[in-house]
């Protein structure tokens, strides 16, 4: 099963978080086990600890209100964090987008 192997997941971060993590362009992550939003974010935070608390609330572990998750032209923000991500993301054909909501100044 593809989901049980180590896959390379492409993640696109918003500009502020790229600056914070000191990365340019996409981030490529190896994710162990099932590729879910939670697993991708776990791997992202393990690689870049400075991102802890910026995407998911420190206290609750939930997605911050003004952060959205997109992939394959779908909004995955309201999917359960342990739901499998689309195969195109798992295969590395499509990136997983972390997006700062369009709101305010």
């Amino acid at each position, binding site marked *: 099963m593809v989901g049980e192997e180590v896959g390379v997941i492409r993640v696109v971060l918003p500009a*502020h978080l790229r600056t914070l993590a000191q990365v340019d362009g996409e981030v490529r992550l190896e994710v162990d086990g099932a590729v879910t939003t939670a697993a991708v974010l776990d791997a992202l935070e393990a690689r870049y600890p400075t991102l*802890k*608390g*910026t995407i998911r609330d420190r*206290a609750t572990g939930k997605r911050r209100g003004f*952060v959205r998750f997109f992939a394959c032209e779908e909004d995955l923000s309201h999917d359960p964090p342990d739901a499998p991500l689309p195969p195109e993301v798992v295969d590395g054909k499509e990136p997983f987008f972390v997006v*700062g*909501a369009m*709101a305010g100044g």
Partner: protein
Amino acid sequence: MAGVRVLVGTRKGAFVLTADGKRERWEVDGPHFGGWELYHLKGSPVAPDRIWASQSTSWFGQLIQRSDDGGRTWEPVGNEFTYEGVPGTHQWYDGTPHPWEFARVWHLEPSLTDPDSIYAGVEDAALFHSADGGASWQELPGLREHGSGPAWQPGAGGMCLHTILQDPTDPARLFVAISAAGAFRSDDGAKTWKPINRGLQSEGIPDPDAEVGHCVHRIAMHPSNPDVLFMQKHWDVMRSDDGGESWREVSGNLPTDFGFPIDVHAHEPETIYVVPIKSDSEHYPPDGKLRVYRSRTGGDEWEALTEGLPQANCYVNVLRDAMAVDGLDPCGVYFGTTGGQVYASADAGDGWAPIVRDLPAVLSVEVQTLA
């Protein structure tokens, strides 16, 4: 030669302004953390090149940055602010119980003696401490667990702990202030706290002289006289001569006693500064004139300081953490506005000049006096 470093937090980043002891020619460095809100930056009194910054946005939450080279480079440190135990509820704007939720760090107060020790005042109101330079933070829960906690309410800006004062003569003594709960004092190193609001009168609350519920905007102290506290309340400028046990109003001849910051001259413990604001519904100076008011008598008698400040068509605000003094002689006084100006006076307020005019809205101003 002695110099000063002014740390400016704005709605869209941090700026570091430096000058020599004359305080005439300024270098402006920034923005650091462009696009983020910087509620406060402050340096360690014992290791001045160590500076902490509170960086946040509604999008990506709270970060704490630390510099060990005077603000040239920065590194994120710990940003986990977890309330001790089950935090319970405070009152919401409509009077209903509302769970305590961390929103942001309003104020950072480094220890007077230990460069690794720093306090943080947060929204929803609580006091945190780090003993490892900011790598980890622990709540000092005695304050939030003071029996009055369920009755605390947020001010318009949120229920924030915005003022932390350390008594330089007694490390166990701390003062804090919370909008809109009031002022509190600990005499045992933050284990237990007592409200110190006797004498405050707030007509916007059901019981005008209640133990808690007062919208204290700022407290200031001169280090040589830690029993004397000065307070800018929502309305009223107040003074205590007994460590907050009792307060009396010293608004005197101010054109309005609403305002946010209050500060004390570095060398004259009875010389204090405020910036009167028209009202709680009109957050700008009366008559469009930006005036700092100085009292050389510890309150009651005030003089307007206007030289170099706009005296027509000025409608900016000066927020509670946006005024500071340096330790040079003559004492320098600094403040920032919501219009993005940072004004400096190198002669204790007699004359003013802008260091910068067009920053984002200024949230905080601190000054370091460098040897």
